[in-house]
């Protein structure tokens, strides 16, 4: 659907060449929700903007639906852009136009008649649940409502691709989840390919199927979201993940505890089995859960448990061996053996 072929973007700044995107080379499939993660300044936004040519590339090619669009200009480019909707962190609605006028603008610009425009705007406002706000101005809408209008505007000309530039970064948690579920619905209902860039890993976790991780202009890792979150291959990804999931046992607690403390990771199917119970029963040891959570990424469970084991040295060793064999990952944090 969208293919980056060795795409690089460089800017000249103060007589120095700055590589914003460095040799991006990957594919985004039709109908998927693809995330691009990375800290600010990683080049995510620049890369996203190359898809609809808001950003011209310095080298490489962009293919949309198999067609090389890199050199599209004028009419060709405008038709391409009609098929690629875009939403932004700060919504970017015209503030002196009503909700209706904001959406109608892109329809009229695509040559739709007044009657067609009217029916379509109604349809779109129904779709995003804002029918009663048709004549409101953006200043009188909440952040979530503004983003809904922006989504309606982006999809007005039946876009097949939706580019999202930090779509929820200006929203509170509750609104974020409602916007994300709207995006998920649109993806399911219309098969729209969605590309989301964000520094919020939770956004990627909750709706993306695959994602890329960017650092200093380069794509460092790319793959299924579940794999990336459960088994990051690159140091940078691990670092990025550790910033967001504050899920560690405090040092003082570890020092105070007697006996071994282990960190268990459960993934996919093995998260549903009562492994810990089996181990305790089989080897006659006790256990004490210090910290634990189970989260769902793409509806697959990922569980992390910090457990203190209590018992004789030999059975403990055997129990740890058993647990290591039956969980995705086991790390012994404090030996105490």
């Amino acid at each position, binding site marked *: 659907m969208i293919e980056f072929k060795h795409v690089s973007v460089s800017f000249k700044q103060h007589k120095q060449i700055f590589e914003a995107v460095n040799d991006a080379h990957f594919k985004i499939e039709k109908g998927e929700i693809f995330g691009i993660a990375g800290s600010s300044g990683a080049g995510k936004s620049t890369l996203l903007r190359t898809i609809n040519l808001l950003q011209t590339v310095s080298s490489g090619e962009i293919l949309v639906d198999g067609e090389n669009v890199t050199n599209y200009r004028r009419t060709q480019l405008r038709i391409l852009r009609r098929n690629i909707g875009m939403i932004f962190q700060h919504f970017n609605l015209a*503030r002196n136009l009503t909700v209706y006028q904001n959406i109608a603008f892109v329809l*009229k610009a695509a040559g739709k008649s007044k009657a067609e425009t009217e029916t379509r705007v109604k349809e779109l406002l129904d779709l995003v649940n804002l029918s009663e706000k048709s004549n409101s101005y953006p200043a009188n809408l909440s952040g979530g409502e503004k983003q809904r209008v922006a989504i309606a505007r982006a999809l007005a000309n039946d876009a097949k691709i939706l580019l999202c530039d930090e779509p929820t970064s200006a929203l509170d948690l509750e609104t974020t989840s409602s916007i994300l579920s709207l995006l998920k619905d649109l993806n399911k209902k219309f098969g729209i390919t969605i590309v989301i860039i964000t520094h919020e890993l939770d956004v990627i976790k909750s709706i993306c199927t695959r994602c890329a991780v960017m650092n200093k202009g380069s794509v460092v890792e790319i793959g299924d979201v579940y794999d990336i979150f459960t088994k990051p291959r690159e140091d940078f990804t691990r670092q990025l993940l550790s910033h967001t999931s504050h899920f560690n046992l405090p040092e003082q607690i570890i020092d105070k505890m007697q006996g071994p403390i282990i960190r268990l990771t459960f993934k996919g199917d093995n998260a549903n089995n009562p492994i810990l119970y089996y181990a305790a029963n089989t080897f006659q040891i006790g256990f004490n859960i210090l910290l634990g959570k189970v989260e769902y990424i793409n509806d697959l469970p990922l569980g992390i448990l910090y457990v203190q084991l209590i018992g004789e040295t030999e059975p403990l060793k055997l129990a740890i061996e058993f647990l290591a064999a039956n969980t995705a990952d086991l790390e012994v944090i404090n030996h105490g053996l």
Partner: protein
Amino acid sequence: MDFDLKAALFLTFGQTMQMVISSLLAAIIIGGSIGLLLFLTSNTLFLKNRAINQIVGVIINITRSIPFLILLVLMIPVSKAIVHTSIGPNAVVIPLAVAAIAFLGRLSEASFSDVDNGVLEAAIASGASKLSIVLKILLPEALPSLIKNITVTAVSLIGFSAMAGTVGGGGIGDLAIRYGYQRYEPEVMFICVIVLVLLVQIFQVIGDSSAKKLDKTSK
């Protein structure tokens, strides 16, 4: 008083309005277009062109740095060529218009630049043509600020038109100087000033209220 003050006031008020309105119209049309050109040639989303932008910018700056009194004199040959006279309200409309065009040119550029670039980027991303973005997004978004700047220009023009009296421009300012100052009739001067103050107030109130009406950015 050995002259009909009422008749003189009516005549000179008409002259002032003629000078102000016609040079203001020229400023809105030509100055506004220049402001738009300056904005479009400075913005990468539209027609970024450093050369055009700088040349037009320098011309505007030069015009704006000439004191109005000197501009009045400098423009005498131009007025002669265009309106075939160098005195009277018709003649001074030329220097007034030139000053107002340069003034509003800069101010309207600022009005356009104040429009959120993200809003324009969103419009470009939607595949709309640049012309329709300028007409249907940029103009309505900049309009309240443009109207405020047109008001500022109009008020300055009222002041300038009074100064234009000194080169035979006519108008209320001319009346004030000839009767009030040169013929020592302070009450004429006083009345003239009152009329000018009222005129400025009226322009300001109309400008402010229409700008406020068109500005939908607050609740």
